[in-house]
């Protein structure tokens, strides 16, 4: 087995496109935002509000809030919980993710 999709014999529907900071990436139906970003080779999509350090998935189950991301202008979404949908505009969340 070389991929988790093969391992589970998964046959998802056709891939669709979303953007991360303007860059197009492919996503599969049923994936979360975090899963789509991982598949695209991206492991961080947030910077902390103190030191500006990169963060991504840590707990993977919605408890740690490290994977916060801005999706379609809504900040503070947990990438590990939110399903990705066609055309999503995903943005790296810097600090609080809110404008003053």
């Amino acid at each position, binding site marked *: 087995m070389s991929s988790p999709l093969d391992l589970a014999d998964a046959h998802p529907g056709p891939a669709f496109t979303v953007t991360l900071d303007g860059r197009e990436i492919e996503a599969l139906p049923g994936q979360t935002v975090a899963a789509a970003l991982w598949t695209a080779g991206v492991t961080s999509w947030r910077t902390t*509000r103190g030191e500006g350090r990169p963060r991504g998935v840590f707990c993977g189950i919605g408890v740690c809030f490290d994977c916060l991301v801005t999706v379609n202008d809504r900040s*503070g979404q947990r990438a590990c919980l939110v399903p990705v949908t066609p055309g999503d505009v995903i943005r790296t969340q810097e*600090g*609080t993710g*809110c*404008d*003053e």
Partner: protein
Amino acid sequence: MSQPLTCDVVVVGAGMVGAACALYAARAGLDVVVVDRGPVAGGTTGAGEGNLLVSDKEPGPELDLALLSGRLWGQLAEEFGQFIEYEAKGGVVVATSPGSLTALERLAAEQRAAGVLAEPVAGGALYTLEPHLAPGLPGGVHYPQDSQVMPALAAAHLLRASGARLFTGRTVTGVPRTSDGSVLGVRTDRGDIHAPALVNAAGTWGGDLAALAGATLPVLPRRGYVLVTEPLPRMIRHKVYAADYVADVASHSAALQTSPVVEGTAAGPILIGASRERVGFDRSFSLPALRALAAGATRLFPFLAEVRAIRSYVGFRPYMPDHLPAIGPDPRVPGLYHACGHEGAGIGLSTGTGHLLAQVLAAKTPDLDLTPFRPDRFAEEAA
């Protein structure tokens, strides 16, 4: 402890008021020991917002104490500012109806006469001060002297700077006295502490300590919740509250009262108070109280409806029947001094309280007349 400790003053209570008493007493040259059954800032100090307010006080002894305290906080800020998150952000009191604006402006005029900076703000100018306020508000008053500290940090840093010996996790179990009734110190579950002066800075639990020393002091808990939001950029620049807050503070009712008090913090979260209930020391979580806080805050700042609350905490303000603290010597028990019962204003009033008490302990004339704060003023009521 096998050797009994000896000092000039033993302060019971390692909250903000105890810390300020320790600092000023130590700076007056006294040898101070601070004892608390819990940790530093473990009582009401650790459950407060850190308000240093003049805006919510009517002219009178409490306002005089607040003005003195504000000046002292300004001095301490030069010494400790960044460690204690001191911020002279100013307060904005908002009238929600034309009628309440008239009452608010009348109060502001009286406060100005007492030395408070209070600048009336017409409707439009209100939004320059606070752009995200709900539209259509008739106006308010800007109080530049209102400030904020992080209360637990302030207590911890003042205690450290005082050089006082600090014993936490030690419970006072008795107050030994001489045959003529004078205080000899305190008895604790881990040994005696000998001192000719005992400062009751036990906050909401000050009545219990007074009783151990043979005096009555009617301190009652008045429960309050604070809601804390997710971290945000500075959306709210001042301490903002609705004019009805002043009436709630002065109320004698035991029932739940809430008036929105909203402010941003240096750390990011917005703090939302203030509820008041007299329900004893019940720590359980009251959804109706928090619902009322959230409703009030979102009426004042509609953008908050989308903002998430991440936590809430509960505390017990030390409430006295006339809303004034007890400060100064207790004429019924020689050597017993009180510094408690500040209700929701203890952080703000702590510096003035500590300063005045240190003057009394050093046998100097205090800067303010302590008569209104006399601890035995309720004696007749109690009898």
